[in-house]
């Protein structure tokens, strides 16, 4: 029995001694039923805390740090001050002491900005496809990160904590809500298998939450899940007969041991695995999609094939009731201390069209209202460069400002929240942190971040630790 439920129960008993008698008893009985159910089907849908705006969430994780002033936060002052020395202040050195040991030059954006959509949103030439869906997006330009190191910042993005060892957002959400399709994993991770993010599966770990809530990594080429298929040489007919024999032996054993509920749970798990073997390949069978759709996602081009295929997989998974799908770019894809022109152009090319296609595709299928799409990285970048030759210059890590976007149910499309200073160096109004982003996502999915707790190592753990603030101005 999960120790958490166990403890909750004990605490109620304790309360009944302190005068909450009958209420506690009732609660205890409720919980025992719930505990038994949770043991049998950990992914069964659970009641949310409040009425949810969306059923599913797709998180497009932009690893490495996207430059805000080259994407969605235009800074005319940068162009004016291009190639001049960055004014030095204590503020600049607070989080990166090493960076300002010598003068640094302001770097104007190599890309032009234009206004798009009815909302007149500024988008740089790097994102021509995203530009076509801006009326469906809400931008937040004032997110601050907790740590300027990639690994720590990615942990913070995923688990709310800069060290390894906490549970990830997808695990928390499936722990809180279960999932709608019992034949597919509730939390699916779609990384670039050739270049996993730092620390790999620790970024989608259930950690202290039960293992049922760990992210399941699916690969876009080759076998999507480890050991999904029968081993070579075992036919479907063989497997059917094996399953029959297994059922019969397990039944013999069960008949002698009714008192152990775990035994039935494990029998159920085998049946589920058996169903997953057929359900997963059909969920991921992209050949059933039209050529037009495949091309919309860029699956026909080598640059966009990987991210595009995974965006399409994400749509098919949420369509089938998967609760949380997380995509990753290649590890550190957007990191561009060196030549940002080449780097950002390349990664934007790989991700812009697929991400925009995902929004369009969800919308035309009527899925955008019940899905939340979030596009974010672990931090932003600096307005200045270390290089003296600006033709090959890059931008460094910046935890004080980054731009992210949201789309889907519950989102006020076409709005902007927060702003940065003239150089885009630092968020100056409407400042939010990772835990606020987490609180916002949980809220839209029907969860209250303060109520979503799990008792571990002496305290009630939360994704947002002591709590986050919803980004109210982007909520419809």
């Amino acid at each position: 029995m999960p120790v958490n439920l166990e403890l909750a129960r004990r605490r109620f008993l304790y309360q009944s001694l302190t005068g909450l008698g009958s209420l506690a008893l009732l609660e205890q009985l409720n919980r025992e039923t719930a505990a038994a159910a949770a043991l049998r089907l950990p992914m069964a849908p659970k009641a949310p805390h409040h009425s949810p705006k969306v059923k599913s969430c797709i998180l497009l994780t932009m690893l490495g740090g996207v430059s805000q002033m080259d994407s969605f936060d235009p800074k005319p002052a940068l162009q004016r001050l291009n190639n001049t020395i960055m004014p030095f202040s204590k503020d600049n050195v607070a989080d990166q002491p090493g960076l300002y040991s010598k003068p640094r030059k302001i770097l104007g954006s190599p890309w032009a900005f234009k206004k798009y959509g009815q909302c007149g949103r500024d988008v740089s030439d790097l994102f021509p496809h995203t530009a076509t869906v801006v009326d469906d997006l809400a931008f937040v330009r004032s997110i601050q990160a907790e740590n300027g190191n990639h690994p720590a910042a990615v942990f913070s993005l995923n688990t709310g904590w800069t060290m390894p060892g906490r549970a990830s957002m997808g695990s928390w959400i499936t722990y809180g809500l279960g999932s709608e399709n019992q034949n597919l994993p509730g939390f699916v991770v779609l990384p670039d298998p050739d270049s996993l993010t730092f620390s790999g599966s620790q970024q989608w770990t259930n950690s202290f939450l039960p293992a049922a809530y760990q992210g399941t990594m699916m690969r876009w080429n080759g076998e999507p899940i480890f050991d999904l298929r029968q081993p070579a040489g075992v036919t479907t007919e063989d497997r059917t007969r094996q399953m029959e024999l297994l059922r019969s032996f397990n039944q013999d054993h069960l008949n002698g041991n009714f008192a152990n509920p775990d035994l039935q749970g494990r029998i159920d798990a085998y049946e589920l695995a058996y169903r997953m073997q057929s359900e997963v390949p059909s969920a991921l069978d992209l050949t059933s999609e039209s050529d037009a759709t495949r091309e919309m996602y860029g699956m026909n081009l080598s640059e966009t094939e990987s991210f595009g295929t995974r965006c399409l997989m994400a749509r098919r998974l949420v369509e089938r009731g998967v609760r949380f799908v997380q995509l990753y770019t290649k590890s550190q894809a957007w990191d561009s201390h060196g030549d940002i022109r080449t780097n950002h152009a390349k990664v934007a090319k790989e991700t812009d069209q697929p991400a925009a296609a995902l929004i369009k595709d969800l919308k035309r299928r009527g899925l955008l209202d019940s899905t939340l799409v979030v596009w974010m990285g672990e931090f932003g970048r600096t307005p200045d460069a270390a290089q003296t030759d600006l033709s090959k210059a890059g931008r460094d890590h910046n935890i004080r400002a980054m731009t992210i976007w949201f789309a889907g149910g519950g989102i006020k499309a076409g709005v902007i929240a927060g702003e940065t200073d003239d150089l885009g160096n630092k968020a100056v109004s409407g400042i939010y942190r990772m835990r606020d982003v987490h609180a916002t996502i949980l809220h839209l999915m029907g969860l209250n971040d303060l109520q979503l707790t799990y008792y571990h190592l002496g305290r009630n753990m939360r994704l947002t630790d002591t709590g986050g603030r919803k980004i109210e101005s982007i909520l419809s």
Partner: protein
Amino acid sequence: MNRMLALRWILAIALGATCGNAADVFRESLLPVLQTHCAKCHSGNEPGGNLRMETLDHLVGGGKRGPAIVPGNSNESLLIQLVRGEKTPRMPMGGVLPEKVVSDLAVAIDRMDAGKTPTARNPYQAWLFAKPLRPAPPVTRDPQWVKNPIDSFILAQLESKGLQPAPPANRRALIRRVYFDLTGVPPTPEEVEAFTADSSPGAYANLVDRLLADRRYGERWARHWLDLARFAETDGFAVDSERPTAWRYRDYVIRAFRDDKPYDLFIKEQLAGDETKTTGPPKQDRGEKMVALGFLRNGTWLPDANFQTQNRQDFLDDMTATMGSVFLGLTLGCARCHDHKYDPIPQKDYYRLQAFFASTRQAEQPIAFTPEESPASLRRKVRELEDEYDATAELAKSVEAEMKKKFAASKKMKPEDVLPPMLNRAIKDTKSALFTPEERKRFQSTQDSLARIEDALPRYRPVAYAVADVVPPDVPAVQDTHVLLRGELDSKGEKVESGFPRIVLGAERPAEIPFAGARTSGRRNALAEWIASPGNPLTARVMMNRVWQHHFGEGLVRTPSDFGLNGDRTVQPQLLDWLATEFVIQKWSIKAMHRLMLLSATYQQATSHPDDGASAKIDPENRYFWRMNWLRLDAESLRDSVLAMSGKLRPSEGGPGVYFHGNAELAKSFPQFHWFVSGEREQGYRSIYGFQRRSMMMPMFEVFDGANMSETCPRRQTTTVAPQALTLFNGAFVNEHARHLASRIVEFAGPNVDRQIDRAFRVILGRPPTKDQTMNARGFLGKSRPEDGLAQFAMVLLNVNEFFYLE
């Protein structure tokens, strides 16, 4: 969920007066009220009554009428007297604060830590923080059932609850249970038969003694400790660098259990091996103790020059919190940012404990291999590697020269002008026809061999991955320890000295550090001596509970690293105290305590009870042990057992971690790490010898609730998820070994199908099949292909519940 939260809140309020760091309480609870209602007059250069209210110091320093508050005592606080109207003029001037605001202010002031020694808040805490007294085993109505004092405690409680113990387990179930429990692998069919046939009175005790002396016992029980010690062989985080000699700590733990190292010594070596007095032959003993210090180093580590002070603080926090969880069963980590919300551990005590580590730094200590580490075979291995390297390097050179020539010719340039990157690009370019696939393969394999040996050599360096003490004059001064408000480095509070928790000592006094002035500061030694002393109220109880937990599936306290108020509470405090005191009497011998527990009638009960329903009504969770709990194979036992049954298990002498096949597929996603799969023999080593890379847990272990290597893991989860079925039914490992197992069965049983079926049941489940099962199996095999039918049948048996759950 809502309801639960509400109840938890009520509980928090009922528990009431938790102490809080005065500055935190001021900031969180007082300041907002003062800003709203008082700041208009009581701030700036000419405050009313000469009293400013912007900081805690202002309030305590007071104004014309003396201190505005007395931390910890609202009734004596002028501020409260004035807002209540007990003194005049009533404040705020011309108004009345809402009653709720006034009472919240008073509660907040009462919560302020006035530097008082915390006291037990209830009888449970009073018991927990006092040295265990040795209780007399109670008298039971039925003396027949009692085999040793453990049973007296258990039975007396069962009797008082109207419960009956379950009948004894049958011999087959018992030998399987104790085999898995002590060795992590199943008995062979011959061992099962011999035991079931042996009706002598000492048969079971002999079996227990034999298994306690078995090499495999050390490997099985060391794994439990490595879980606690958050052991891994890499740093974690992005770079996840290897710790080439971390394996020595793993082998140290295996030896410690195998040799029944007294637990007090085991503690002292791991916390202060460099500072404790040596007991054995000095040199060898010292080596062992330095390796033991790996305990303090096992945490995750993010090497980053930019964040050195923060990293140092994280290191201190990791050592302090882990020490608290593992040895004391206290969630000390909770008191890093604020006073512990439930247990009488003020934040200050956390930093007083942390101060014991203030002089500890990370260090790789040059320590020769001890005789137990078989230095001769390690040296032989190094020579082999070096020879292999020389040979391979030569081959690599000639392969490269040949390819260079070919490349140069194709580009019409001189071979000596070909730069390595140019050549590498050409070799990697699979679209070019310049090199044949064979040439490419040969090149890659020589390069891989070199890399593999370069990786391997540092693992044989006689170095202990350990810590050292900062000692003047090498390092001018040990850094002071301060309370860190909210746990943040830039919010330094009061300076503290090393000391033990006040709740145990009954007063605040600095620890005596007898070694002061010696070669090392002796700080950790003082801490270790305190933890490992018979007088410590927690140490022996916590360890006895852990041992009990692994034998019985549940601890007496079910949160084995949290004995605090918010953890589980035992219903057998007397039994726990008896075990703890007995442990000390037995000179901290863990094996002696295993023996006691395993020979008890309590352990030998069946898992089912003739009166299951009625007993479960009285005690649904089996808190009173009216039957034995079901035990489930953990990830390592699962893999090791499959190997044992397929005949592929190979004994290991320890040494550097093995690269199992099981990670090879996953490793393709981590091109930054090498995963050179070890040789065939090593594939048969037990799981504990597998190389532990934090960012790449073996997929099989990940789905079967393997220990999260990032923090101390006091108990494994036991979840049931579909991917487990995929791993066990489709995975390459189990399928491969099912084939080996099938050939072994044929070897033993010959061509007779019924004999094969019988043997398969006996090897995998430790019993013969029933008639129906034989029929069923015969039907299955009749329809199967002769070449792999038996292997497929073995697969089924490896997947049945009866194999995975132990009666």
